[in-house]
């Protein structure tokens, strides 16, 4: 029963990054630019950040009625269907806004429902936090696989039946909910939000979004890997996040220690992504493992700290969601202009490096001129994106095996230059994201140490 509620929470939070791997395809299908298509992510996270606390207040005011969750699930499902049917970027962004409004209701109402269903505050809240972490970590992978296997629209179609499965579960909890409400502190004033935990969550979410958003863009747009390959590559993060829970339980170092270590790992992983020595996928594994471990150590423990012994729970759940998604929006707003400007600036050095290789290539001058013409056309056609050079090389007329071998070597060298330029273009954005993660260390140090419950999830 609770699994379906957790699934709904996971899907709502997965949606904050689920379209990351679909962005290049959305970009092409809806004829948009990188900065515009980022609004598919920004709109959802911004509205979720703004609506989470009001939605939580509504949930508290309606006596924690499951009807809030049911309405939220219905709105979320309808908006997901609208996303799938969108034929313009504006329509997609509008549907994402409505989806986030529904999601805010779902996520805050489900916190209470999970606590009630588990019959224990800490276990329920831990389940809610863990579902959110799992959703956020798995979202990009699931989105990438669906995009590669079917289409970007399928991401939204799949969500409709999955979230609606939670409706009967929410309705079934109605009697228990009423009984449980009486066990809380009726009439008591709401506790103040946990500033340090929420601030650290906001900063780390900004950094983590950068990790997923930028890494996926680097893999798909910079290194021209397929969404399926990119999805398979970024599975390292959720796998490492799961492993982090085992590490944390074994270490029993306390939430403050976990949060500080996690922030260091996320910052280090992002720093390592800024210093990749090659465009081979293998080089991204260790940085991703650091980020995944950091994610697993920080987000659910910080969420638990922000929720524990604070009432009303839904309201504090709302604050954590607001903090996380405000962080995501801030991260996207800060980093998108950084890397788009760097991508623009990377064009000239890449063109010069390509020109140098073509000028010095040991090919007949006429073949070089044809190649230069075709490469120029390819660059113009891609309109600032990293071009596919293969068609230009396929079109050029060459005589004999030695010339073809030299052309093949030249194509490899040009691809290497493009990968170098793209990787370099993402460096500053990764470093800014690493700095955001490091900024989470002071608030993490301000937390009071609390041992992790042995059976947290």
């Amino acid at each position, binding site marked *: 029963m609770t699994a379906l509620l957790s699934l709904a929470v996971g899907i709502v939070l997965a949606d904050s990054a689920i379209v990351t791997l679909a962005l290049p395809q959305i970009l092409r299908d809806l004829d948009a630019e990188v900065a515009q298509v980022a609004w598919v992510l920004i709109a959802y996270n911004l509205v979720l950040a703004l609506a989470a606390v009001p939605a939580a207040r509504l949930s508290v005011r309606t006596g924690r009625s499951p009807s809030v969750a049911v309405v939220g699930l219905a709105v979320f499902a309808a908006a997901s269907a609208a996303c799938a049917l969108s034929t313009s970027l504006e329509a997609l962004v509008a549907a994402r806004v409505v989806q986030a409004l529904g999601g805010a209701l779902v996520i805050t109402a489900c916190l209470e429902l999970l606590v009630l269903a588990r019959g224990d505050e800490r276990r329920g809240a831990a389940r809610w936090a863990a579902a959110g972490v799992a959703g956020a970590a798995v979202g990009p992978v699931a989105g990438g696989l669906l995009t590669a296997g079917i289409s970007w629209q399928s991401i939204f179609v799949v969500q409709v039946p999955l979230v609606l499965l939670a409706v009967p579960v929410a309705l079934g909890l109605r009697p228990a909910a009423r009984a449980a409400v009486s066990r809380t502190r009726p009439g008591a004033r709401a506790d103040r939000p946990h500033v340090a935990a929420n601030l650290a969550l906001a900063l780390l979410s900004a950094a983590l979004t950068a990790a997923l958003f930028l890494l996926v863009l680097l893999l798909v747009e910079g290194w021209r890997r397929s969404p399926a390959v990119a999805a398979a590559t970024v599975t390292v993060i959720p796998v490492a996040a799961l492993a982090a829970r085992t590490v944390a339980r074994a*270490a*029993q*170092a*306390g939430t*403050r*220690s*976990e949060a*500080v*270590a*996690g922030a*260091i*790992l996320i*910052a*280090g*992983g992002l*720093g*390592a992504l800024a*210093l*990749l*020595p*090659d*465009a081979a996928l293998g*080089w991204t594994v*260790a*940085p991703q493992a*650091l980020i995944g*471990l*950091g994610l697993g*150590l920080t987000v659910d423990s910080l969420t638990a700290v922000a929720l524990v012994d604070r009432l009303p729970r839904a309201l504090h759940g709302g604050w954590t969601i607001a903090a996380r998604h405000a962080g995501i929006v801030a991260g996207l707003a800060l980093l998108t202009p950084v890397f788009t400007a760097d991508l623009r600036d*990377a064009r*000239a*050095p*890449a*063109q*010069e*490096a390509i*020109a*140098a290789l073509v*000028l010095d290539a040991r090919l*007949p*001058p*006429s073949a*070089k*001129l044809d190649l230069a013409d075709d490469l*120029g056309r390819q660059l113009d056609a891609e309109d600032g994106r990293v071009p596919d050079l293969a068609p230009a090389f396929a079109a050029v007329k060459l005589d004999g095996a030695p010339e073809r071998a030299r052309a093949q070597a030249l194509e490899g060298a040009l691809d290497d*230059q493009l990968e*170098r*330029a793209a*990787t*370099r273009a993402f460096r500053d954005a990764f470093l800014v994201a690493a700095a955001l993660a490091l900024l989470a260390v002071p608030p993490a140090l301000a937390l009071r*140490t609390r041992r992790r419950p042995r059976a947290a999830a």
Partner: protein
Amino acid sequence: MNARALLLPALALLAVAAVIGVQILSGGRDFAPPSPPDPCRERPVGPRAQALENLAEQVVLIGVQRAACILGVSRERLVLALPSARDRQALARDLGRDQGALVAALKAGRTGSVTRLEGAGRLPRASTLLDGYAGQLGLPGFAEGIVRRIPAGVVDDLLPTGGVLKRAVADIDVRTVLRELDDPDALQAQLGDRIRKAALREARARLIQKIPAPIRNLLPFG
């Protein structure tokens, strides 16, 4: 923080240092497109060209590099800017010069290029290029046959490659070349015409030189 609480952050720092250390040692700081080489550093001249096309390529590449050196810009930036009038204007603006400076640098570069190839002994003899060139002259079959049968010694004597190229380079108007970069056929026709005229003038000058001075002085050669 107690020792137990410090262990996890310490291990995190260690893991981060290990990953970043390995990446830096593997060249992580330098994975970026290389900076273009200094155009004022002469590159070794390639082998002697066996065809007109390769000779033209050598002249152009060395000439563009020399022009880039004069302008204080990379060879690649100059090459990328040349095909488009807008890019040429942008380059001239960035360099704080006018387009006349660009044209002058290209002309000086081309002349220097022929001198360099000649000095390095890499200019091919005209007779080795004649086979390929005769086909491009557009002569009737019998006339092309006659051209091909001219003894190599005569060709090389009348048409020293360096002399012909220097005349052609002096005659070719860089502004016209730049204007016609978008129309390769017109450009090729114009260049071919200039080279033909340069060859004729060089041959005429050589022939005149071969006439004994007393007779030459009596004839109206100017």
